[in-house]
C-alpha cells in the first residue's frame, strides 16, 4: 500500500504563479499597493483505541490573505481557501470592496524589514511515513502505556501526527519570502481507576520536526508517572498556600497574560500595561522572560512573520523590569521602534508571542533560596497543569480563577488533589515569586524552570 503523503505534491504553493496572478489582477483593478500571505499544509494523523485504529485523517489545506491599499490609502483584506485564478480574482475584488470601509485613522504599511535578510534557521525535514507506520507506532505506545500499571484502563485521547507546512509572503514592492518545514507530534491522555474511587486522568505531549526523533518513550513515562501519582488523591482545605508552578503551568499562566507584552493590546486599552510602562518594575528582580522564536528547541519556527518581518528574539522582562514589547509594523511605528517579527496579517494586525523562555536572572538572590521541587520538605502545592484558561482568565483585569491538576506535597510526599481551583492576580504572582529554580525545562510551549510563589488562594472541593 502506498499511502505516504509525500507521494504527490498536490496543494504545494507556487510563489511565481501567485505573484504573476496578483500582479495581473491588481493592474486590472488599478491597485498599486498590495501584499499577500499564503500557507499550505499536508497532514496525516492517526488515533487508536484498545489496539485498533480509531480514526485516520489526512488533509491538504491552502489559504491566502490578500491585503490591498486603495487610492485613499485605506486598507482592505480578504481571506480565501480557493487558490485557483478565479478564487484569487474574487479575493482581489473582495479586498477592494473591504478597503472602502478601511480605518482612515490608522492604516498598516509594509514592514520596513520585509526584505531584510532572514536568519537561516534551516529546519530539519522529516522523511515521510506511511499510515501503517504511524498506526504501528501509536498502537505500540498505547499498549506500552496501559501496561505500565494495572489501574490504567485506556488512553481515550491520543494522536500521532505528521505534517508539512509552507508559508509565503509577497508584496508589490518585491518582498518575497518562502519557507517550508515539517513537524510531528504525539499526545497521550490516559485514564485510570481503582476500585471504589473516582477515575483519574493525565497526559503528555511531545513535538519534533522529525518523527524519527520524537521522544515517544518520555511521553509514555511522563503520562504514566503522573497518572499513577494521581491514583492516591484527597480533597484539600480552602486556604492560601505556598505554590510551586511546574514549567508547563507557569508558561500557561504567562501566555494567558501575554497581552502585558502586546503593543496592540496596550494601544487598544486591553492590557494591564500602558504606553509608559516600559522600564517599570513589574516582577521580582530575579525574573527574566523573553520571547525566542528562533530558539533551536522551537521546532515549529518560521523565519518570518505575517508581514514578512524576520522572526527575532526579544527580551520582555529583564531583572523584573518590562524592557520590550511585541510589535507589528503599525504598533512599532506608533512606539518609534522597529517591528519585532510577531505580527499576523490583517487590516488591523494582531500580535502574539512565539516561544516564551523564562529564566532566572543573576542579579538578585531568591527570597526562599532553599526551595527545590526535588527535596523541599515543607508543605506546598505543586501545580502541574491549569485548565479552562479560555474562561477563567480576565487578561485585561489581571485576575484568574482556574481549575488545576496537581499535588499537595508534605515531607517530600505527593498526594494528588481531588479537585481544586487556584485564583489570584498575575501582577501579585509576579511580585510574590520567592524562588526561581536554576534548571530550565523544555516543554512543548516554551522553556521555564519551576517557579515558587507564596500566599496564593486555593479552593478545595471539600
Amino acid at each position: 500500500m502506498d499511502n505516504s503523503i509525500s507521494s504527490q505534491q498536490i496543494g504545494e504553493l507556487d510563489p511565481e504563479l501567485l505573484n504573476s496572478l496578483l500582479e495581473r489582477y491588481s493592474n486590472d483593478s488599478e491597485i498599486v499597493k498590495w501584499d499577500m500571505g499564503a500557507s499550505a499544509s499536508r497532514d496525516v494523523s492517526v488515533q487508536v483505541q484498545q489496539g485498533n485504529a480509531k480514526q485516520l485523517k489526512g488533509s491538504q489545506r491552502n489559504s491566502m490573505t490578500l491585503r490591498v491599499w486603495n487610492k485613499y490609502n485605506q486598507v482592505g483584506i480578504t481571506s480565501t481557501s480557493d487558490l485557483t485564478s478565479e478564487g484569487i480574482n474574487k479575493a482581489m475584488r473582495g479586498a477592494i470592496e473591504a478597503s472602502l470601509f478601511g480605518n482612515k485613522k490608522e492604516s498598516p504599511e509594509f514592514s520596513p524589514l520585509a526584505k531584510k535578510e532572514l536568519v537561516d534557521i534551516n529546519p530539519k525535514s522529516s522523511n515521510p511515513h506511511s499510515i501503517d507506520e504511524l498506526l504501528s507506532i501509536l498502537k505500540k505506545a498505547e499498549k506500552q502505556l496501559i501496561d505500565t500499571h494495572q489501574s490504567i484502563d485506556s488512553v481515550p485521547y491520543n494522536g500521532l501526527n505528521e505534517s508539512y507546512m509552507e508559508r509565503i509572503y509577497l508584496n508589490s514592492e518585491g518582498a518575497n519570502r518562502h519557507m517550508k518545514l515539517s513537524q510531528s507530534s504525539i499526545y497521550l491522555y490516559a485514564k485510570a481507576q481503582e476500585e471504589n474511587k473516582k477515575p483519574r486522568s493525565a497526559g503528555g505531549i511531545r513535538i519534533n520536526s522529525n518523527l524519527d526523533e520524537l521522544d515517544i518513550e518520555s511521553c509514555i513515562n511522563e503520562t504514566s508517572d503522573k497518572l499513577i501519582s494521581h491514583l492516591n488523591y484527597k480533597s484539600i482545605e480552602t486556604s492560601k498556600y505556598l505554590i510551586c508552578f511546574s514549567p508547563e503551568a507557569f508558561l500557561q499562566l504567562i501566555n494567558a497574560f501575554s497581552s502585558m507584552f502586546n503593543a496592540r493590546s496596550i494601544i487598544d486599552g486591553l492590557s494591564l500595561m500602558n504606553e509608559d510602562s516600559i522600564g517599570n518594575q513589574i516582577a521580582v528582580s530575579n525574573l527574566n522572560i523573553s520571547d525566542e522564536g528562533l530558539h533551536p528547541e522551537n521546532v515549529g519556527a518560521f523565519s518570518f512573520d505575517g508581514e514578512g518581518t524576520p522572526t527575532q528574539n526579544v527580551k520582555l522582562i529583564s531583572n523584573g523590569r518590562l524592557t520590550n514589547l511585541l510589535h507589528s509594523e503599525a504598533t512599532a511605528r506608533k512606539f518609534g521602534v522597529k517591528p519585532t517579527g510577531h505580527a499576523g496579517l490583517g487590516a488591523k494586525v494582531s500580535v502574539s508571542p512565539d516561544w516564551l523562555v523564562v529564566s532566572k536572572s543573576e542579579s538578585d538572590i531568591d527570597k526562599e533560596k532553599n526551595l527545590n521541587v526535588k527535596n523541599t520538605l515543607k508543605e506546598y502545592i505543586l501545580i502541574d497543569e491549569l485548565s479552562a484558561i479560555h474562561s477563567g482568565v480576565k487578561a485585561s483585569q489581571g485576575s484568574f480563577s482556574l481549575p488545576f491538576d496537581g499535588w499537595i506535597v508534605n515531607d517530600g510526599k505527593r498526594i494528588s488533589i481531588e479537585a481544586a481551583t487556584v485564583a489570584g492576580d498575575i501582577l501579585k504572582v509576579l511580585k510574590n515569586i520567592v524562588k526561581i529554580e536554576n534548571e530550565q525545562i523544555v516543554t512543548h510551549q516554551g522553556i521555564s524552570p519551576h517557579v515558587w510563589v507564596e500566599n496564593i488562594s486555593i479552593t478545595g472541593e471539600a
Partner: protein
Amino acid sequence: MLFHTFDETLKPQIEELLSLGKSAGADLVEVFLEKSDNISLLAEQDDISNVSPSFGIGAGIRVFLGKKDGFVSTNDLSKEGLLFALNQALGMLGLVTGSLTNDKFEGLSDLRDFGTKKNDWLEHSPNLDESTIKLIEATKSLADKNKNLQVRRASYARNWQEVLVAATDGVFARDIRLHQTVGLNVIAQQDKNRSTSARRYGSSDNPDDLRNWEIEKSACELNESAQKMLYAEYVEAGQMPVVLANKFGGVIFHEACGHLLETTQLERGTSPFHDSIDKQIAHKAVSAVDEGFSNHAFGSLSMDDEGMEPQNTLLIEKGILKKFLSDRAGSLRTGHPRTGSGRRQNFSFAAASRMRNTYIKQGNFSPDELIKSVDDGLYCKSMGGGSVGPTGQFNFSVEEGYLIKNGKLDKPVKGATLIGEAKEILPRISMCANDLDLAAGFCGSVSGSVNVTVGQPHIKVDSITVGGR
C-alpha cells in the same frame, strides 16, 4: 474546478467518485462539499477598525470499513484533487481503487434540497455598508450610557455556508446555512477599579437578524452589568447553594452533562453515564432535551452534516436518562441510533455527535422562589465559558454574580469559578423555574467549533464548589 454549483447536475460526477470508492471494497463512502462566504467586522470606540471578508471551498471524503474510518479533507476540488483525496482515504484502510470487488453502488437518491427557500439569503443579508452603520450605532449607544467605559467594542460575523452531502447509502442532500452573531464588549474603569463585560447575540436562518437587533436594550444591559461589577469584591470560596439564571446559565448542563451524552464520549469510554439508560442520573426536577428545531435558534439546522434531518431528542425525563446523541460513526461503534446530530465546523473535520439546542425544561417555580429558598449562597446572573475533562469534571466561570443572603440578592461579587463532577451535581439540581430561555454560543470539540444554543430556566443547585479567593 469540478463543482461550481451544488445541485442535481453534480450527481453523475459524485456517483462516479463514490462508485470508485465502493468498488474498492469500502463499506460506505461519504462526500461532503462546502462553499462559504463570511464577513467579520469590528468597531472600536467610534470607528470601524477591521473588515474581513473570507471565502472558502473544500471537500471532506470519509470511507468506512467495518468500524474503522479514514477521512481526508482538501481545498482542491479539481477532479485530480478529489481523486487523490479519495485514494488517500481508501489507502488508510488498505483499500485501492480499481480492485473491482463485488460491492455494488446502487446510485444516489434524488436530491433532497433543504436550501431551496434559502437561495437568496446571501444577497438579502446586510451588506458591509449596512453592517458597519449598525456597529457604530452600537458603540455610540454604549458611550451615551456611560463615560466610564474605557473600551467599547462591537463585532459582527455573518457566516454563510452551502453544503452538499452524498454517500453510498443513497444520501444526496443540499442545504444553505446562515448564522449571524453580534458581540459587545466593554471595559469600565474608575480609579483603580476595572471591570469587563461581554454579551453575544446570535441566530440562524434569519437574514434580517442584524436589522432587528435591539441595540438600545443590549447596550443598557451590558452597561448595567459593567457598572455593577466595577466595585464588586472577590467571592469567598467554598461549598454553597447556587441559583443560576436562565439563558446562558444553561452552559452548566451543556458542560456537566450534554457532552457526556454524546456517543463521541461513549466511544472513548469517558462518559460516566455509558450504562445508565433508564436509570436515575439527575434530580426528578430535571428534564432535558437536545433539538434542532427552535425557530432561528443558533443551534437549529434543517439537516445535519451527514444529510439527516434533526430530531427532538429527549435526553433526560424527570431525572431518568432516556437517550444519547449519535452521529453515523457513533451509531456504528456504540449501537445507539442516529439522532441527526452529526456536525462539523467545516469540510476539514469529520462529523461527530454534537449538541444542537440543548436545554433543561422549565418547572413550576418562579425565579424569586428559588432565591428565597437560599439562606447563604451565590446567584450567577451571567456565565462565562466552561469545559469538561475526560473524567467528567467540569468547570465554568461566573461573569456577573451576587451573594444571596437570607433569601435576597445582596452585593455583587467577581472571580467565581464553579467546579464539580456531572454525576454528583445533576442530582443536586433541585428546583427549576418557569422562565426557560435560550442563548447562542459556540462549542469546541472533536469536529471543530459549531453553533449551539444553551438554555434553561432559573435553576437551583443545592451545593457546588465555588472557587474564589
